[in-house]
């Protein structure tokens, strides 16, 4: 099995994510800078993100991930982005208009149009993918990408937004699979194969 590498952007607690990934008896480690690991290109990167869009964008730059990730994405590397770790794969966000995303997916994050923010809780996924269809996922966010040609699941909070995206071997989840019960664990296992 391919090793799973957590891109550690120092943006919050990684315990539950590590714990969720550890159930898969796959080799797992967290890496803070690309130079700290001898990448072969055959790894699976998991990029969680908590906090503001600009904070994650800054961390990617400061910890020297930006050129590495651009190469990784353009050469068809395997990556799973979670929450702001998914948003950063897009071009930008209304949360911090100055900050630049990685631009792998086309689109921008907008503020959720609902009087109660942040959105906190469980919502049923509208998805054609069998492993997500009608499953409940745990969301914690105030921003989301309204639409994307690569959307694989959507939910509505005010308006519809992308709950999951996928292009080739790059997966993004706006919700938290590591907090989404057994469904989330199985989903992580599936995308880390």
């Amino acid at each position, binding site marked *: 099995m391919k090793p799973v590498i957590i891109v550690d952007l120092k943006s*919050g607690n990684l315990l539950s994510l590590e714990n969720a990934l550890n159930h898969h008896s796959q080799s797992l480690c967290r890496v803070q800078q690309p130079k700290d690991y001898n990448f072969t290109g055959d790894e699976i990167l998991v990029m969680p993100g908590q906090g503001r869009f600009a904070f994650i964008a800054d961390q990617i730059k400061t910890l020297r991930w930006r050129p590495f990730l651009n190469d990784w994405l353009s050469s068809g590397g395997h990556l799973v982005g979670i929450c702001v770790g998914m948003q950063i794969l897009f071009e930008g966000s209304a949360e911090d208009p100055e900050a630049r995303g990685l631009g792998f997916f086309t689109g921008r994050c907008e503020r959720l149009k609902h*009087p109660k923010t942040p959105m*906190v809780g469980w919502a*049923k996924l509208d998805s054609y993918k069998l492993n997500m269809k009608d499953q409940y996922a745990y969301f914690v966010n105030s921003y989301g990408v309204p639409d994307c040609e690569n959307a694989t699941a959507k939910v509505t909070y005010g308006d519809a937004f992308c709950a999951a995206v996928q292009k080739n071997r790059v997966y993004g989840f706006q919700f938290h699979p590591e*907090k989404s019960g057994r*469904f989330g664990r199985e989903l992580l296992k599936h995308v880390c194969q």
Partner: protein
Amino acid sequence: MSVNNLKSDLVPRIIPCLDVAAGRVVKGTNFKQLIDMGDPVELALKYEQQGADELVFLDIKASVDNQPSALAMVRDVAMNLSIPFAVGGGIKTMEDVHRFFQAGADKVTLNTMAVSQPDLINQIASQYGSQSIVVAIDVNREAEGELAIYTHGGSQKSALNYHQWIREVVDRGAGEILLTAMHKDGTGSGFDCELLADLGADYPIQVIASGGAKGPEDFYDAIRAGADAVLAAGIFHRDEYTVSDIKNHLVNNNISMRTTT
């Protein structure tokens, strides 16, 4: 624009609350006597399997001496649970907050400290985000009918005005409020639906209703009155109802619930 027309796929959450002391789940019959109810991880997993959407752990005997055991418990729970959980009790400084998040808590809840040191709400919200801070509000309808905010586990009446306080915690960055109607707590006479309805659909953060549940219809009433989540302790701990019993009742009454397959 009517906010009631705004669409949301969020489903109401059912949240069992566990009282803990020195790293064990306890039940207090009165202030002096605590009965050991068991291992926090075991009970947490039991509720997760029943379909709980989230858990809250309240350290009812929180003290500096007890903090190491509380942190060990949080770590243990985080390593085993696959749903979110909040911890409260004994959080006095930003240092405490860091320690609980580092141990794996998803949220912290503040009650007394939110009142005595409200700036802590701002600090937590700016460092960890609004989603990580739940302000617990113990409100009591006094004999004269007015609403008073209590602290220190319901033992001290504060000078706060209820209507101002519920706005202030939002302005300071709280992501949710946990609203306990003390005049209903433990009475088994249902949640205070009037209070919930007064908050209204345009209250800008999530509302967790607590206090007074005796049966599934009380959960139904609270959700219909506007609660985004309902927290309960006794009826789950005494095994009167499982979380799935409550959810089945709600689903049968046309309230969408997260169901696990």
